[in-house]
């Protein structure tokens, strides 16, 4: 940890997953990270989660995409709408980018791949705690293909209504787009940091802001899209 002062409080945390071993693994990882277990709740279904969230008021919810009584993307959207203080992160196994992207558009600020090593999952959670997010080349590529235009400068969002409409309500800053390009080519965060002169934590922050922009565009639309693509 570089700086503890910048950490976001992730506790209490809710794990929504119907697979017991995954539940246990995630609880273990979170416990290692947060150092306490009493702030971690577990739900097996969408219904459970919807019941728990208003009472438990988690700061973080890890949501599996494939749940027995519904889909996680919908749950993420619901949480984002009704409890915007709760940060959501999608969980997927061998996740297809379309599914991950649907979750991001529904409001998730990150994703975890079940097949990854513990080391990698831990790194992802740490990144989330630092206020950032991790990203994979295939996801970066997919986001780039979603957004054909890139606004010149994020600081001066002088986007006219028509332009913003054309851009599907998403406009990335030049820096964000540059980072996505690097990620898509397979550069690691450290390499990108070397190339851009930014710290790797700043880069993680940019990644998160890209995810937020995706979510802002349309949450319900993302669910519909994912459904129509047969992913949910």
């Amino acid at each position, binding site marked *: 940890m570089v700086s503890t002062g910048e950490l976001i409080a992730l506790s209490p945390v809710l794990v929504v997953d119907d697979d017991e071993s995954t539940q246990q693994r995630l609880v273990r990882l979170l416990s290692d990270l947060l150092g306490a277990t009493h702030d971690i709740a577990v739900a097996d279904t969408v219904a459970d989660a919807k019941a728990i969230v208003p009472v438990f008021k988690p700061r973080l919810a890890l949501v599996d995409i494939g749940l027995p009584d519904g889909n996680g993307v919908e749950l993420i959207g619901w949480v984002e709408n009704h409890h915007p203080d709760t940060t959501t992160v999608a969980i997927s196994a061998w996740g*297809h980018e379309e599914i991950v992207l649907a979750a991001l558009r529904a409001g998730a600020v990150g994703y975890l791949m079940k*097949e990854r090593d513990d080391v990698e999952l831990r790194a992802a959670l740490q990144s989330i705690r630092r206020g950032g997010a991790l990203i*994979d080349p*295939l996801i970066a*590529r997919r986001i780039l293909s979603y957004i054909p235009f890139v606004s010149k400068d994020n600081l001066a969002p002088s986007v006219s209504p028509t332009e913003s409409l054309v851009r599907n309500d998403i406009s990335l800053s030049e820096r964000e787009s540059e980072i996505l390009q690097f990620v898509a*080519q*397979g550069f*690691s*965060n450290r390499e990108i940091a070397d190339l851009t002169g930014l710290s790797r934590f700043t880069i993680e922050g940019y990644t998160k802001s890209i995810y937020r922009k995706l979510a802002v565009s349309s949450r319900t639309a993302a669910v519909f899209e994912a459904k129509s693509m047969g992913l949910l």
Partner: protein
Amino acid sequence: MRVFFVLLLACGLFASSVAAEQIPSTTNATIELQSAEAAPADWHSEAPPVDGWTPVKLMDLWDTRWPHHDGVVWYRLHWNQTSTDQPVGLFIDYVSLAYVLYVNGNRIYSDTHLVEPLSRTWIRPQYFLIDKPLLRQGQNTLLVRVSGLAGYQPGFGAVTIGNPDAVQARERRGEFLRYNVQVFDLSVSFVFGGLFFLLWLLRRKDTYYGWYALCTVVWSLYTINFLASSPWPFNNTPAWEAINAAAYFASTVTFAIFLLRYAGYQWPRTEGIMLVLCVALFAVALLCPQWTGHYRAVAIIFGCSIYYVAIFGFMGYAWRHPRADNYALAGSLLIPLVVSAHDMLLFLGVIRSDSYLLAVTSPITIIGMGSALAYRFAVAMRRAENFNLELQREVQAATGQLTETLKREHDLALNNARIGERLNLVRDLHDGFGGSLLAAISTLENPRLPPEPAQVVITLKELRDDLRLIIDTTTHERDTDLAGLLAPLRHRWSQRFEAIAIDNRWTVEGVDDLSLGAMRVLELLRFLQESLTNVLKHSSASQVHVYIRRKGECLNVEVRDDGQGFDLASVARRGAGLPSLRARVGRLGATLQIMSSPGGGTRLSFDVPLSPMALT
């Protein structure tokens, strides 16, 4: 034939007018002098002979009276002039060939050439104005010295005297009908002949254009007969007349051949005979102008017959082949037929008029024939244009079909390739992933070697990583180049090395547009994954550098680390992972180069040949 008609014209003019000789003129009246006296003389006669005068009726052609008289004939006419207050007009209608005119003993006109080559004055009428003191009250005498040749209608036509305006009007009408119309005829012939000659030059296979052009040009040569005032370029009248008759004959022959061609016929023997006759006639005309000129009527009549036979023949053809252009041409040929019939009837006095029409209608005929040709040309053009349109439509349809077929074939090929890839993938799952899985199971099941949990995890993670590669490669191969397919592996391994603080560098150059095909890419990724796993597990390296560079027609792959290295000989014997790497490189069509020494790091490298097919 034309010569005859000009003569008919002259005859007709005098026949249709009212004879009023020796009647005192009033202010507006004209009189036509039809009575005269004629006396022959030699070529060089300076004054009218004293005796030998014969009374004649004008117009007079002396060849009937003195059949062999070439030379001069003097004509003497008288008229009574009641008053000389007003001048009188004098109209000389026809003189063949050259003459000198005296009024009351005074010479008032003389042709340039009174001996051969004789002037050709007959081509146009002449008008004179006579006033006091030349004009006398009472009897006036007109003396005309005519130089002519017995063979070429020598003689003198009627003379009209009277009110100048009326006489001049008559002269002008004669000038128009006999001269101006011929000028027009000639011009039209040249223009149309020239036009279709050019057309023929551009379309040699449409020979009727050429024959039409030839016909009109030869015809216009003949027409010059009515316009030339001297026999130039010949130095005598018979030569001129002989060539002229030959030109007439040639025009009828070419006309007949034109009609044949137009109707689509070729009669080589008939045409050959006629053309040979033409050439022979020209030759004879040049060699024996006297003889040919004398018998030129034969050529004229023969040519005239060809002309009429051709016209009637074509009309029969048009009757049997009803087509607009055939009708147009037949119609334009009908004009000279009708007109010559009209002129003939007029000559015979069956109908009454004072105008012969053939000379006027000749240009109409030429224009009519030209129009028929133009119409035919236009029809051919239209057909060509329609043909082009139709052709274009058919080409478009064919192109469309071809495109569709090609697309279908392409789709089919693509589909086959896809199926092939899928088969490859299945085979790979059997041999690669499946093999590893079976090996892992048999190892774990071995009762004599109870598995350590850590070893089990390592084995399973290897399987997982391999599955990841398979998924990434097969899911994204379609729309992703090598650079894109390398990215997830690179990203993953960068993270792994970073997590355990191994400095890792990647140099990826010139692979942006490279496509190797799913199976080769998978092989390459597996090589990288295995060699990087080796670095991670065995090398204790602090630095690893991966190079993937395109070098011309090769893809150079290199993995270097600064780890502990190994003894090539001993490792080769034990074979810790190296045979697998070698096999993969071999499947990529390359040979693995290994450089390693204990403590000196390891370097694996190979060059994958890129077939031209791999370049997109």
